[in-house]
């Protein structure tokens, strides 16, 4: 796995090293010769509409860079969360205006989307720079691989104890006994595949003693389950929770980077099993602005685009991004922190989609919810 990543990284480094590649409106040197046709085609297209689960503040740095390259393309983004797919399908069925490009999480719905033939098969010139799991289906590319992390309130977790493994979290709970009841939190894996995926992803990564369902069951008496990362964070800060395990890094990174939250909270990767969740994007087959969408997809996969998305807490999929180039840890840093063998990437596969559904049931079983 790591070797594959490194080959990709070397190649990507070579691409990035080509000088003068990003002058306005000019195809980068390593891009195919006919890339300029794509650029020309984009000039005749209507504005580009993207449905995603990223907020305007996540998109801004990305689109600023894109605008410099292709000033004539107007990009509009909608942040849609849970109703993204249903809105797309409903609009498509009614011939209403809908997304040219989609960028979101979710193994099952992506496989369904691809299965329905909704993805425009497109090979990005950046393809070679990406690890295999980042290009699961023709035209579908991962734009980030986001880790789950453990976060704790330093005032409530005594003497420098670090919650850097799930074993440490469990030990903490058992040691504190009744005092820890209701003081731990994580996502509610029993409610929907979105959160069931959290736990299946964890099972792919976990290398410690026993299995994740034993740990989940043992933690159940101490845990309350939330559906919102923001609510977890607020309650960690107020002291209602002492530890949030396996929570979403994107919510935490930007908040604990500075200020009072930094002095109160500590976080860590999960060293005995670190799940990573690719978030994917694709151009839709019925896109009204396919050329513009392809250009944006390519831009997001460039080193520049990846760095831009990382500003809001997303973890880039490219291994050629070095520590210090982005405000939060790179993929390489995560690999170093936990060791390659402890990494589990939740890939977009039929098998995983089925396992996620099982995980939802299993979660309910062991937690008694």
């Amino acid at each position, binding site marked *: 796995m790591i070797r594959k990543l490194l080959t990709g990284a070397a190649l990507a480094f070579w691409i990035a090293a080509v000088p003068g590649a990003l002058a306005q409106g000019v195809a980068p040197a390593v891009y195919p010769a006919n890339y300029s046709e794509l650029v020309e085609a984009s000039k005749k297209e209507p504005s580009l509409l993207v449905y995603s689960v990223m907020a305007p503040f996540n998109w801004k740095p990305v689109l600023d860079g894109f605008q410099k390259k292709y000033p004539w393309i107007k990009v509009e983004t909608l942040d849609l969360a*849970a109703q993204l797919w*249903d809105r797309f399908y409903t609009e498509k069925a009614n011939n209403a205006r809908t997304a040219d490009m989609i960028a979101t999480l979710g193994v099952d719905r992506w496989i*369904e989307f691809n299965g329905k033939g909704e993805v425009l098969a497109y090979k990005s010139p950046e393809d070679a720079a990406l690890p295999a799991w980042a290009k699961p289906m023709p035209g579908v590319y991962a734009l980030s691989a986001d880790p789950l992390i453990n976060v704790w309130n330093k005032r409530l977790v005594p003497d420098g104890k670090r919650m850097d493994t799930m074993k440490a979290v469990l030990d903490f709970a058992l040691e504190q006994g009744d005092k820890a009841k209701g003081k731990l939190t994580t996502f509610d894996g029993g409610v*929907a595949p979105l959160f069931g995926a959290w736990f299946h992803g964890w099972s792919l990564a976990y290398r410690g003693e026993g299995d994740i369902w034993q740990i989940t069951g043992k933690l159940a008496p101490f845990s309350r389950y939330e*559906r*919102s990362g923001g609510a977890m964070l607020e309650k960690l800060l107020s002291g*209602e929770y002492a530890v949030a395990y396996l929570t979403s890094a994107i919510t935490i990174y930007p908040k604990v980077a500075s200020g009072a939250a930094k002095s*109160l909270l500590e976080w860590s990767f999960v060293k005995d099993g670190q799940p990573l969740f690719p978030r994917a994007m694709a151009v839709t087959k019925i896109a009204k602005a396919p050329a513009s969408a392809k250009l944006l997809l390519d831009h997001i996969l460039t080193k520049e685009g990846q760095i831009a998305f990382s500003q809001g807490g997303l973890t880039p999929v490219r291994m050629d991004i070095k520590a210090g180039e982005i405000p939060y840890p790179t993929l390489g840093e995560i690999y170093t922190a936990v060791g390659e063998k402890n990494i589990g990437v939740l890939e977009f596969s039929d098998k995983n989609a089925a396992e996620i559904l099982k995980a939802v049931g299993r979660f309910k079983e062991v937690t008694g919810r």
Partner: protein
Amino acid sequence: MHARRSYVSARAVQILTYALVGFLVLLPIVPIVLQSFRATPLYDPGGAWTLSEYVALWHDATFWQAVRTTLIFGLLSTAISLAIGLAAAILVARTDLPGRWLVGFIMLWPAFVSHLVLALGWITAFGPSGFATLWLKEIVGEIPWTLYSLGGLSFAAGTSMAPLTYLYCIGAARTIDSTLESAARIAGAGPIRAMWTVSLPMLRPAVLASAILNFVTSIELLALPLLLGSPSGMEFLTTFVYLRGFEASTPRHGLVAAVAVVLLFAVTALVLIQTKLLGDTRRFVTVGGKATRPRLISLGIWRYPIAIGFFAFEALFIVAVLFAPVVRSFVDVLTPFVPIFDVLTLENFQSIFGYDQFIRSIWNTVLVALIGGFLGTCLIAAAALVSLRSDLPGAAGLGFLALYPRAVPGVLVGMGIVWAVAWVPGLSLLQNTIAILIVAFIMRYLPIGWGAIQPALLQISPDHDRAARSAGAGWLSVVTRVLLPQLRPALGACFMLLFVHFIKEYAAAVFLFAPGSEVIGTTMLTFWFKGDLGAVAALGTLQIAMVLVFMTAYRLIAGGRFGG
């Protein structure tokens, strides 16, 4: 000749009103009813007509569990909202309680902010580590409640719905003929007894209207049950429906739609019960031909104790709960571990005002709330007048039609309208503009406005209509010259309610907003899902500010008042 022409145009106006309300309500409901008979989402071609979703509901143990929890929650929270709202309305309108205008004003506050923000306020104030909890713990020792329980949730929801009860009842309470109360006093009744046996029964139309709406609203609540109930593992009808319908691997839109259809029947039953309980509506006529000077009931020595008690209640459960998100909007983190002055910041507002989309969403919301509130009030007033004061055949049916939207989950309203837009020629012109949001929002809150106007209209004696008629006025003249001027407080309340609900709405917008037609509700969801609750609180603070500015302007310009 003249009289004949005015009759025809009055009839035309009545039919047009009926048609418009019918169109608006059926627009999203028809696709929803169709969807309930399909196992796959409407967008999937080749689906077959089936009853399978109803059968699936019937056999689903989780569904019945959710129904049970939801019914208990609905009854509890409705009872709480009634007790609080009604007590406030009577005290403010009928007694000499000191500071009663302030009691009434604060009573309205929970209506001003989104339930997401309200839930945040309850957690921050009364959660296990809430500041009010910690404070009370220091004084009393033990805390006898848990917010994350069915009781705690019902109490939070009940106070959040009390403003509706209060607004519906205050108008009715003001117009009670005080000679009736005086008669009771002369017959030897004390002030409390006079209130209990005379004032209270006179409020029955308003009480019933608010009880029914609050009950149905509580069934349809999402944010509060999700945030206060779910962490303890409680499942409600809405949380169940959203999970199965939209967040599952295979979305079950049919299941959600089937629940909506079941709720439509429940609303029909409730309206029938309401009609039966009201009986002869002439009993509630309090605005007669003769003017009397309203006299207030004196509370005597109870004046100050009652006032102090009520203010204490409001300070704890309204002011403190809303204070929390407002403070949260001005700090980096809200925590007992760090002094608040160390974490003051404007960043939460900067993260909103730094982006065009977000600023635009605020302006769009103002437009939607003002234009939508005005159009909605006109439509609802017209509908109520046609339903209660015209001889149009089948006019009573409007009363049912106007309440049906309450049965439909907001997300389904949006989805239904996407379908309707494709089916009804010309509607596509509205797509991707705030106009389509206005249509959806008016539809969704028709019942809320209806409840403000219908009881008030019942209180105006038909003698007025007859007097004007015998003086030669046509229906339209009666309506515009006699009834509408007397309805002014109710129209104001209706507008106010629509305005605050439009400012808060997000569920119906999820399927309908587009680049350029964002609203505060959709912006709030963005920050919510990104976990930035500081910005969510800042948006809540902006909502409060908008409502206060609007109320002040209304008071200065129109001389109107709400409750206070």
